[in-house]
């Protein structure tokens, strides 16, 4: 890369505030054509905000942005398009009932007739140039997540994007799909485009990028050449202090059978079968990981155990209490399960939509599981308040007050409140769905540590995860779901990432 040329993008003193907080503070950096730049930072470090200013979603409160040397005021995504900037968001912005071509043409202003045939030809041309696989006439609802992402990228290129921003593009992809994406990105670099990818995953940064720009707490730290970086050096830049990269896996001697899930079948509200003949055992004193592409029945499986998802006849969910008594949880509501004296904790994926009441403070949220205890009409608030204080102190939750609405807290602190509450009820079974999603490294490690503590206490921990490295390091066994079926249960100590990736994408014949 030639640093003498004019940068494709220059940020000069760019600042953005939300309320009293600086999301970006005085960011100054250059990004060049023909390079892949990884934008790295912990959660809340301001990566997405910075890129949103480049793509016209936010407008900076201070500072200037130059595109190819010219000062630019990017007021809307449309302005960004005109400047040749395209952003691929984590949540795709596609119309389900339209074809790929129709989605590409949607919202393009200008002269000329609506000509889908010509557009489709252009799309095929773009695909051939960069190595995409895309059928222009396919409807979006028929597409896989990876195909939708491809369509978003093609859409941006069709509109003449020279600068392409991808926000955590691999979060929704299998390892094989991610490899494919990377080879396409390399082709784009070869064509002289600027590619910016926002990511948490260090291995990806190292394998794909030319340079890495690091943000920390809204501020710009440094840009380094990838060739001279290592996972450890990047982590240090990112978090500002040395962090232990190893996740512990303490061994527990006495595993006890706690939960038996047998032949569970379930349908969602649209009538699609989401779980097919799912069977597994969970033991106290182990962490059972559940891997799978998102939407393969993970959510429904946990909700079925928690009593929130209806299961079909012939299914069986058995619980062995520590005294050896066996009880069926089938058809029981969460309240009934609680009344049976079974302490089942569940950290759902949707933290503020399901697990926590966003408008209430920590105290109010502690009450969510215990408010109905006792016969009094008045809800007890003293014990929840003490619990809230205890969790705040022990888990170092950063909050102005335990009465501050939890939705105002950062993602990591929100999760600490949720996990803290679920652990506080001394569960026998602890189920977590994407417990570290969106969390920074420090907060993630706090959660891993808490889960390990629970495991050592003899709790049966079920950990639905998406990062395979974490699953491999943390769990004892890993159950792989594929299309709502169990496609294998493997020993985490003896398996490989590739094997799990394969199980995630290829349903074994005997299971099909």
């Amino acid at each position, binding site marked *: 890369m030639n640093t003498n040329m004019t940068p494709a993008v220059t940020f000069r003193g760019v600042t953005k505030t939300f309320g009293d907080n600086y999301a970006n503070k005085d960011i100054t950096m250059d990004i060049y054509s023909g390079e892949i730049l990884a934008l790295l930072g912990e959660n809340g470090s301001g990566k997405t905000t910075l890129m949103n200013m480049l793509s016209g979603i936010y407008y900076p409160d201070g500072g200037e942005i130059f595109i190819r040397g010219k000062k630019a005021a990017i007021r809307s995504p449309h302005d960004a398009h005109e400047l040749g900037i395209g952003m691929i968001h984590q949540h795709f912005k596609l119309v389900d009932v339209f074809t790929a071509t129709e989605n590409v043409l949607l919202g393009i202003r200008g002269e000329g007739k609506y000509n889908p045939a010509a557009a489709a030809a252009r799309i095929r041309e773009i695909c051939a140039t960069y190595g995409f696989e895309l059928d222009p006439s396919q409807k979006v609802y028929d597409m896989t997540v990876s195909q939708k992402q491809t369509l978003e990228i093609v859409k941006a290129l069709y509109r003449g994007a020279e600068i392409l921003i991808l926000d955590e593009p691999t979060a929704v992809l299998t390892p094989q799909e991610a490899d494919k994406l990377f080879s396409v990105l390399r082709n784009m670099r070869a064509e002289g485009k600027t590619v910016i990818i926002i990511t948490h995953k260090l291995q990806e940064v190292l394998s794909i990028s030319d340079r890495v720009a690091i943000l920390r707490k809204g501020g710009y730290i440094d840009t380094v050449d990838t060739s001279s970086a290592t996972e450890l050096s990047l982590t240090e830049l990112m978090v500002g202090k040395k962090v232990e990269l190893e996740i512990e896996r303490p061994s527990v001697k006495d595993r006890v059978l706690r939960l038996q899930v047998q032949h569970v079948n379930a349908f969602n509200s649209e009538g699609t079968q989401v779980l097919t003949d799912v069977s597994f055992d969970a033991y106290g004193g182990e962490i059972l990981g559940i891997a799978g592409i998102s939407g393969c029945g993970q959510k429904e499986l946990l909700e079925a155990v928690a009593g929130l998802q209806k299961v079909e006849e012939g299914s069986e969910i058995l619980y062995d209490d520590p005294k050896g008594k066996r009880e069926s949880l089938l058809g029981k509501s969460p309240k009934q399960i609680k009344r049976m004296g079974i302490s089942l904790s569940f950290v759902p994926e949707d933290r503020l939509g399901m697990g926590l009441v966003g408008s209430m403070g920590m105290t109010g949220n502690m009450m969510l599981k215990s408010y109905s205890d006792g016969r009094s*009409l008045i809800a007890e608030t003293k014990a929840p308040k003490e619990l809230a204080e205890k969790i705040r102190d022990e888990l170092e939750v950063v909050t102005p007050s335990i009465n501050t609405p939890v939705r105002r807290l950062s993602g990591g602190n929100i999760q600490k409140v949720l996990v803290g509450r679920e652990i506080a009820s001394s569960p026998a079974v602890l189920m977590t769905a994407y417990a570290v999603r969106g969390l920074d490294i420090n907060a993630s490690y706090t959660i891993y540590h808490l889960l390990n503590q629970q495991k050592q206490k003899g709790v049966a921990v079920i950990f639905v995860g998406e990062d395979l490295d974490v699953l491999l390091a943390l769990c004892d066994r890993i159950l792989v779901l594929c299309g709502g079926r169990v496609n294998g249960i493997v020993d985490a100590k003896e398996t490989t990432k590739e094997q799990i990736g394969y199980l995630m994408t290829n349903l074994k014949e005997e299971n099909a």
Partner: protein
Amino acid sequence: MSNQMTKKREPLFHIVRRDNMPMLAAWGYRIGAFVLALLLNAVFVWCMVRVDPITFYSTMWEGAFGSESYIWATLKAAAKLLCIAVALSPAFKMRFWNIGAEGQVLIGGMAAAFVMYHYTALPTVVLFLVMIIASIIAGGIWGFLPAFFKAKMNANETLFTLMMNYIAMNVVDYFYDKWRGFRSALGILNQNTKIGWFASIWKDNDTDGLMTNEDFWFIVVILVIMTLMFFYLKLTKQGYEISVVGESHNMARYAGISVNKVILRTMILSGAICGFCGFLVVSSQSHTISSGLASGYGFTAIIVAWLSKFNTFTMAGVSLLIVALEKGSALMANTYGMRGFSSSAADVMVGAMLLLIIGSEFFINYKLMFRKKDKEVQAA
């Protein structure tokens, strides 16, 4: 290049959410909005009828608080509005769009009137008990029906509660016409015997004073309901359940709350209090029934409930403010009606007031960031 520059200017302003405005500053905004509304209305009135602001506002004040009878009229109306807003608060806190308060009050008042029309022979205590129970049941049914169909079939509660209003109105009209017979109007029920009136509770020969004032007891009962509702929402388990259901149904299921049960229970409560309000109005205020019983407050109360963020004590203040504006501008229309200041002009004034007060909430939650003066950069 310069072409591009002049075309792409920064927007004039953009909107930024602010997180925590100090309480004092927030009240500064509210009071500022109120003062601005006063100024705006002064200009409006001057343009319409050439009345100077001082005369104008002293007329407004007089209309609301100018004499003992004006004060009572204002307080009574504010209490009625407050009572309905309090009744609506649990439903709205649960995010159940109950716009059927008008009908729930009407049907409750109808039930009370029915009892006092037909069962004049009952002993006073029994009569009142039957009136109260009948009005609560009637209002409760009006609350239950939309909740039932919401819970069972996910029927849209907004349309359902709205339609229930018209049923209530027609039921009232039916009895009104039936009881009226060939007279021109129904008139006061039990005018001579005062059966079913608050006034029948105390003996006629008691001295005058607050203790024998129907309006006083009307207001007291409503203040008690307001206080009870405040604690119900704030302290009880059921109040907690309402907050959780209002936040998200999924979350409620997760917490082991039966969403349908809470919806049914809360709407029956909301309807029952509206029905009880109907009883209060019939028994202590109107002493008769007509489809104008709730005087449109079933809808105004929705504004009161939201503006007060479901704090029932705040509702008392907001109700008083709205009613005082109403009464004040009514006197304005009365005094200057000949010069063209009609009751519609009075409505415009009240509307402008509310718009500015509600608008101030926007500026409390958001701020506008204006484009900085950077002409030199533009020119470069």
